[in-house]
């Protein structure tokens, strides 16, 4: 299923793969509901303000890949709810020139709910993220994996919070954030937070922010690659895993080629 969306809509996801292209001139509100196993590729071609709300029903398993291809600045406000033993995977691919301001609140409402939020950002503009994953019930799992390559003129902001409320025992909250910088004229801010109000939990966070290692560059250049080729290869390797939820090999290859092109054009 492939379709274009430009007006507010309620979308009940059918099992399997679907593709949605957002091409909207005015503010847009989309509600998704998944009750089975679904995989959704959402490509944002044109938009301003988007409000997205998803429901992952009991035992449902759904993966969303949000691929931002918009040329201008967009604002996205998201709310995701995961029910009992539901599995939600969200991947944000931001390899376009346009700026983004994205707020995402993921609520693990009932026992056994699972959410994995990942992002891959090639940042040459203003990329602003506030992501919260909240465990509200026992035995829930929230994972965040954020990867960014920050280029000259790029402004990367990632405020990622994993929260476990009192009573949500046996829950886990983990996050990893990595920003790789190629230039001094950029700014990167990563604010990893863990708000834990329960004793019986597992939680962790890891953050790295830095330039490409000089010895790695030297090693690759010593085999004849120019500095630019080295940075492209490293960046591609850094950001490509965001497409890993895609099961359709043709689409995956297409997206990887688009990413390689964008990176090579830098």
């Amino acid at each position, binding site marked *: 299923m492939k379709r274009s969306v430009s007006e507010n809509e309620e979308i009940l996801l059918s099992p399997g793969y679907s593709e949605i292209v957002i091409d909207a001139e005015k503010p847009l509100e989309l509600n998704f509901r998944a009750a089975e196993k679904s995989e959704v590729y959402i490509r944002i071609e044109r938009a301003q303000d988007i409000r997205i709300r998803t429901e992952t029903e009991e035992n449902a398993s759904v993966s969303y890949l949000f691929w931002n291809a918009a040329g201008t600045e967009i604002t996205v406000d998201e709310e995701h709810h995961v029910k009992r033993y539901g599995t939600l995977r969200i991947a944000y691919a931001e390899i376009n020139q346009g700026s983004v301001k994205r707020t995402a609140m993921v609520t693990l409402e009932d026992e056994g709910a699972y959410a994995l939020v990942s992002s891959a950002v090639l940042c040459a503009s203003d990329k602003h993220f506030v992501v919260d994953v909240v465990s509200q019930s026992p035995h829930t799992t929230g994972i965040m994996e954020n990867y960014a390559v920050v280029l000259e003129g790029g402004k990367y902001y990632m405020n990622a919070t994993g929260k476990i409320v009192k009573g949500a025992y046996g829950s886990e909250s983990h996050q990893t954030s990595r920003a790789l910088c190629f230039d001094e004229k950029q700014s990167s801010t990563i604010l990893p937070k863990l708000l834990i109000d329960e004793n019986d939990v597992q939680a962790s966070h890891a953050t790295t922010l830095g330039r490409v290692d000089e010895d790695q560059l030297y090693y690759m250049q010593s085999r004849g690659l120019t500095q630019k080729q080295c940075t492209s*290869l490293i960046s591609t390797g850094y950001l490509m895993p965001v497409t890993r939820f895609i099961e359709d090999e043709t689409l995956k290859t297409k997206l990887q080629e688009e990413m390689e092109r964008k990176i090579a054009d830098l």
Partner: protein
Amino acid sequence: MKTLIIENLHVSVEGKEILRGVDLQINEKEIHALMGPNGNGKSTLLAAIMGHPKYEVTEGSITYDGKNVLEMTVDERSRLGLFLAMQNPQEIPGVTNSDFLRAAMNVRREKPVSLFRFIKAMEKTIADLEMKPDLAHRFLNEGFSGGEKKRNEIVQMEMLEPSLAMLDEIDSGLDVDALKIVARVVNRIHEEKGTSLIIVSHYDRFYQLVQPEFAHVLVNGRIVLEGGKEIIDRINSEGYDWIYREYGIEPETAEEKQRPKISLGACAVNKGMK
């Protein structure tokens, strides 16, 4: 004739002079052993030839095939035909061996190598080095054992076909069988492609397998002794002391590394290092 000519080379690392006037000439198809105790400049010389940014050439010249190597970037030197198998190959997560090697092969040819021919060549090279077939799809050196990293350096050497290859302690971390495999491939590349070699090793075994015709001994940042195979044999049986004795050289490195001794008692009465 592609010749490497080094004249009066002085190299500093972080302000400290390591090489103090090195002269060396490597002609096409020659195999040279570069010897000397640890910390006397062997790796520094190879890194300076390849162009590591930390190694600053303060005086002297390096030319290869008539071209001024010192004016070139690291990647230009590689495309000129120089290759350095490193002592500590870097791990590059996210970049597969095959993507990396294919890119490295393509920068030295007009038309990119076809995927089919690349895969065939890669498979053959992996088999030559007796490595696992999944090597191509693994990330560059990531999670490799010490021996796998060293063998992977030779995989790259075989694929890139340099005209002058420098092997910096390629044999450390290799067991006896792996050492034989590496030596076999290195010898074959030398014979088939006429590749010249500069080999740094602490072990006689690798020199026995590769048979350098020339040997140079670096002490205190200078080449103090040059000759043929007989030098390698004598160092193997007697170490370096005879060189210090016969040529009146005082080794500096050992003394410099000693720090003033401070006993715990001295610290306690506040006489610590200033």
